[in-house]
């Protein structure tokens, strides 16, 4: 007997299952390949990459918070050339889809990085991070004004040789408006949520815990915000939505799917349990069997 169908299609790309990694929490998969078969993932979404190597922020870069964590890594990455040579080469024989996350400080940065990656066969999709709260120039500025978001999306989509996912920031007043701006700019899909800007103070030392002062909040604490925003965004656009934010088990992932997500990403939960994404895949399958549902696609946006 055939099991339930977990496959989904997002912007013309077919995924064996809807579960992927969230950018920045999984490197390029090498580290966690020691723990489990990363080929079982629906997709690997790699750490943000820019045209040239970035140093990132001083330490401390991470802090724990109740049911969550703050990070201000500052997008440290080896630059796109090394990324292609080493990371993409590592992923060559991993049997899953590869989504490359791109960051930049200026429109030109984004464009040249996108252009460079467009010709790489191993890249299935690009995810554009216009929502990182941890670098001073660029990044989030592109994701907080609908007009600016429309422009950058438009310019990227014109030259991208791959389907483009625009990754939205939750640090906005109206997420629906941002989702529509990305769709109007030509995005093939949107993903959300990136981290919520937060701050932690060490009262004994009377200092900021993070060297960057502020950091991005992630983990179970932000899950209800993610469900709400995915729901609102999914109702605002016709393009597919990839949901993330605090997913730690199949229940959390199913909430995002029922709210309208075609795919879900597991982020910080990997730090608590390296094979969380596998647990989520198995849990979704069990749920489908238990409810006699043939395909996970029937659940997308089913609560409306």
């Amino acid at each position, binding site marked *: 007997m055939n099991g339930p169908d977990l496959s989904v299609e997002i912007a013309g790309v077919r995924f064996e299952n809807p579960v992927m990694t969230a950018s920045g929490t999984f490197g390029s998969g090498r580290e966690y390949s020691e723990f489990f078969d990363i080929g079982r993932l629906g997709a690997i979404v790699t750490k943000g990459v820019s045209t040239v190597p*970035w140093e990132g922020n001083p330490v401390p870069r*991470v802090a724990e918070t109740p049911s969550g*964590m703050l990070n201000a890594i500052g997008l440290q990455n080896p630059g796109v050339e090394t990324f292609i040579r080493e990371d993409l080469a590592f992923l060559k024989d991993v049997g899953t889809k590869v989504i490359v996350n791109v960051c930049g400080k200026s429109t030109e940065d984004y464009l040249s990085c996108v252009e460079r990656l467009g010709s790489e066969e191993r890249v299935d999709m690009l995810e554009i991070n216009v929502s990182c709260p941890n670098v001073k120039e660029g990044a989030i500025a592109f994701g907080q004004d609908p007009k600016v978001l429309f422009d950058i999306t438009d310019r990227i989509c014109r030259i991208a040789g791959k389907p483009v996912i625009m990754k939205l920031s939750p640090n906005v007043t109206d997420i629906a408006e941002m989702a529509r701006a990305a769709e109007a700019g030509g995005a093939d899909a949107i993903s959300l949520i990136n981290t919520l800007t937060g701050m932690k103070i060490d009262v004994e030392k009377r200092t900021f815990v993070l060297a960057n002062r502020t950091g991005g909040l992630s983990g179970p604490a932000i899950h209800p915000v993610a469900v709400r925003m995915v729901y609102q965004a999914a109702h605002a656009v016709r393009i597919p939505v990839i949901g993330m934010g605090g997913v730690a088990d199949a229940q959390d992932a199913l909430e995002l799917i029922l709210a309208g997500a075609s795919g879900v990403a597991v982020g910080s939960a*990997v730090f608590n349990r390296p094979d969380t994404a596998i647990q989520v895949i198995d849990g979704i399958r069990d749920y489908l069997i238990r409810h006699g549902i043939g395909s996970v696609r029937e659940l997308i946006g089913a609560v409306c």
Partner: protein
Amino acid sequence: MAKTQSLMAIVEKEKLTEDIYRIKLKYGREAKIEDIIPGQFVGVYPPQKDKILPRPVSICDFEKEERLITLVFRTAGCGTRDIASLREGDELKVLGILGNGYDIEQLRGKKTALLGGGIGIPPMLYLAKKLSGIADVTCYMGYRDSHTFLLDDFKAASKTVTATEDGSIGVKGNVLDALQADAQKGTFPEALCACGPLPMLRAVQRFAAERDILCFLSLEERMACGVGACLGCVCRTVSEDEHFGVPLARVCTDGPVFEQSQVVLEW
């Protein structure tokens, strides 16, 4: 070395001082046990569900036949307090074995001083045991006051010199004061291994650099993944990382033990 996340049973728990605990953890039946290098650590998950990150704790001892590791930790905050509240028989979620330890081969045949300050003391015990018969070891252990811990274990493992900040036991001052006192008497080390607070590591680094002594430092940094994926735990280095192209290294995977001349202990 393969890394795993597994449940380990607390088979022994002992309070060593007001805020220092020793626990012995037993590997599960299925666990594949590989050798552990001194300086390596594990990520211990506090039992409370609202804490999601592992706490890095160094291996203080490893008994392969008995399938046991020993950890000695200070209750520094909520997570370590939760861990200390567990009882014998309880299970702990552990990620490991993590990091790169001390390069034992480079220490072979050398007169080696192990310097431990405060909560940097525990990993030196396993190192002292592993070096026995390989190097001529003296342990310099620095405590704040008379509330010492593990001293008997150190004395059983090697020559041991104690320093206390208040002078209540042994040399008054820190481990470097004790080392320098011995150096003046003519016992000068050919190699140093140090673990402890940052000011101590900076002083040891300077001491070693000025005298051109082989020196390994074990660094601490806040971690999220513990396995090299998140880039949360970097330290400054002298030269650029081969992959990342910037002068930074990951404490969790490139370290926590670094050769002194490779790292810059400032930002």
